[in-house]
């Protein structure tokens, strides 16, 4: 493994990370000729590229979100499958973030660069687990790149929701979730905790559940809030996009307890500002311990930090003798935190 002075074939550009010999971008922020997409969140998977390489699941998510005609030439690559683009070898490895999420493992001139996209390390029933890839350069996200972020075990957090359902059996429990990934994960966590009652969904989070089902994620009995009688919503779990929490829409619920499932809920002041009464620290991003453990595990001499609070992670890497820098890649907006 060696320092990146010699690795100049991948670099940040205004359009995103560019792999020069292969002439393609990873998660480009604007429409380009050739793109490799790590996962389906909108800040990574934008429409309009001429050629797209991604996992089958990510392509399906993009198609569901943007329609087939916005995506011209698609090529699916399964986890572990190898492909060569102008001498650059490209492989996708599971990132554990959401369904279909992948790390991009690139090899060229005897050097290996891994672009992790977004990732987490704890198990998630809706996607394959992260597989660490030793490398020369590790490009890591840093959404929760501060040591105050330590997500508690998911089971504990779902336990809080179930406890509140027992305390307030007459109130709707409105949980804010990002539509892609978090929504399905929270459903699976509830099911794993033995909760098999119908779960009600806001129209803004339903679009992807057929897709998840067709990829083998068994979500149980899901219903639309719009079709439910008010009485059914008393004591029910209702999932909605965060933007709907304070919306007039929520008036159709029964005296709702407002919950929010997000890594940001770790900071009380943040939760409070958003008017959340029941914060649930459930995140699809690595927390501080996961980030630092992963960097140690892939043991890359060069770490490029992007996407979040880069400074602390760069500082830590430098203390460990790694060559670390913050990559200013604009355009990422933390969908699915």
């Amino acid at each position, binding site marked *: 493994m060696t320092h990146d002075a010699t690795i100049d074939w991948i670099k940040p550009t205004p359009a995103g990370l560019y792999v020069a010999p292969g002439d393609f971008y990873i998660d480009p922020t604007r429409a380009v000729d050739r793109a490799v997409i790590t996962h389906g969140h909108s800040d990574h998977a934008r429409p309009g590229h001429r050629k797209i390489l991604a996992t089958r699941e990510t392509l399906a998510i993009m198609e569901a979100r943007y329609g087939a005609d916005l995506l011209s030439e698609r090529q699916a690559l399964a986890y572990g499958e190898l492909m060569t683009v102008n001498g650059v070898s490209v492989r996708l490895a599971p990132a554990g973030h959401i369904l279909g999420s992948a790390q991009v493992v690139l090899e060229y001139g005897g050097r290996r660069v891994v672009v992790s996209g977004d990732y987490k390390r704890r198990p998630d029933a809706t996607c394959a687990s992260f597989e660490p890839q030793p490398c020369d350069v590790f490009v890591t996200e840093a959404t929760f790149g*501060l*040591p*105050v972020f330590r997500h508690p075990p998911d089971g504990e957090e779902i336990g809080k929701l179930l406890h509140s359902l027992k305390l307030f059996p007459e109130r709707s429990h409105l949980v804010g979730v990002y539509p892609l990934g978090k929504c399905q994960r929270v459903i699976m966590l509830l099911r794993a905790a033995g909760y098999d009652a119908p779960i009600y969904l806001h129209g803004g989070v339903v679009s992807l559940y057929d897709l998840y089902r067709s990829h083998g994620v068994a979500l149980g009995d899901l219903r639309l809030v719009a079709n439910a009688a008010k009485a059914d919503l008393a004591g029910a779990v209702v999932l909605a996009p965060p933007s709907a929490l304070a919306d007039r829409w929520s008036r159709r619920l029964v005296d709702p307890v407002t919950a929010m499932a997000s890594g940001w809920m770790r900071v009380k*002041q943040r939760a409070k*500002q958003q008017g959340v009464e*029941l914060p649930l620290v459930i995140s699809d991003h690595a927390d501080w311990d996961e980030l630092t453990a992963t960097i140690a595990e892939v043991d890359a001499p060069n770490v490029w930090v992007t996407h979040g609070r880069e400074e602390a992670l760069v500082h*830590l890497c430098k203390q460990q003798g790694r060559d670390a820098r913050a990559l200013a890649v604009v355009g990422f907006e933390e969908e699915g935190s």
Partner: protein
Amino acid sequence: MIRFARLLDSLIYSPSRNTKLRLLKDYFATTPDPARGYALAALTDGLEFRYVKSGLIRELVVGKVDPVLFELSYDFVGDLAETASLIWPAPAELPNNQSAPDVADVVETLQSASRGTAAKLLAGWFDRLDATGRWALIKLISGALRVGVSARLAKLALAEFGNIDVATIDELWHGLTPPYAALFAWLEQRGPRPVVDESVNFRPMMLAMPLEETELAGLNPSDFRAEWKWDGIRVQIIAKPGIRRLYSRTGDDIAAAFPNIVDALAFDAVLDGELLVRRADGEIGTFNDLQQRLNRKAVTVALSTDYPAFVRLYDILFHGREDLRSLPFSERRRRLEAWHGNVGAPVVTRFDLSPLIHFASWDGLRKRRIEDMPRSAEGLMLKRADSLYVAGRPKGPWFKWKREARTVDTVLMYAQRGHGKRSSFYSDFTFGCWRAGADGEAPQLVPVGKAYFGFTDEELARLDRWVRSHTVNSFGPVREVEPHLVVELAFDSVHRSTRHKSGLALRFPRVYRIRWDKPAAEADTLDALTRHIE
């Protein structure tokens, strides 16, 4: 500690007052002594730990985690207690004989701890608590819970818990000490009413409601007495053989800062008045002059002679053992004047009477308020002649008719993220006025003051967005913004100050109106502000 942590945690997430009351009552009902008593003390600011300062928490944490990581985290979270509790690297496993500490353990141990051991104790407890537990512990020991519960609300919950009037709690309060076991026993009807020597206790003061001028039409001038509302510190004096107390409105004994007053307390009465200072020129000093005195723990001879303090009396509550509070104001006033006429010269030099203002009509009084108001007054007090002296702020008997606030149009210059619940908002603002440029140079903005309140939550959200999209420079947590937004500040007065570049300082600046519409060039100049100097 876990129960207490849960209580605080639920309190901060509960927006409604009723829910908070319910949570508090529930806590009092289900938590044993002495834990609940110490929790009550914490909620009413009744706990103080000599060797625990907020610097200690920071020191402890920085000893355990990288200081750079700590600073970055603190800047993000915005609240020290929360940052420390989240970042603390607790051991993955504890020896199994260790459990989370109890509130009572914490309080009692810390109160008897020496300077050297406090840090070690805290570190041990931090290891045995989760993040929320640590957060509650830090709040407990730092004396400012800030969980949206005032001491008032806590006492109200206590009164509801015991099914008694809150005024009864107030009467007893200053004679009781944590953990209030006797009080809880009485509230639960397990014991007698606690006996406190009430004669030396602070009596909750009677306060005035702000007057809406439209209300005057419905009031009969002959029912009222008027006097100036002096701009000092409202105090209650309790003097009897062996007892000399000077209480502020919140019931704090501030006697130590005013030894000359204490020397003059050679009588037997409970009085209500305004603490003021006199300047060298014989004029009554401003609130600023007084503030200088209050901030000192020990008073130098120079301070006492430069700014001799005195009390301007409004009312008499007790004369000897006789409780006068149930007499009408006009009768108490007669008794006050009689008392003052008979005390000796040493008392009179430190105590004078707030004169009554004679008036026949509201218009006449309004005219006097505009034309004759002394500089050291901040408005008028109207008191019904038949008003009894009762605790709190009843509607009807007393009104305060305040001077209108002065305002100035300033330009927003800097913004800083707030703390507490505003930690992710730019909510602490620095404002400036224009200073004319010399010889045709462009005018320059000079900071004149900071303000943190006076805006609604919606305005705050809008200001925050404005700051983020108009930042030209960042210095740590501070952002410099484009000098485009005009904000009208209200303030009580202006003073000369060497600490500010402008040479001026505003007293009680607060945001009065945000002038989204007004061009910055039309904001006020320093000269305009200078004209308000007293």
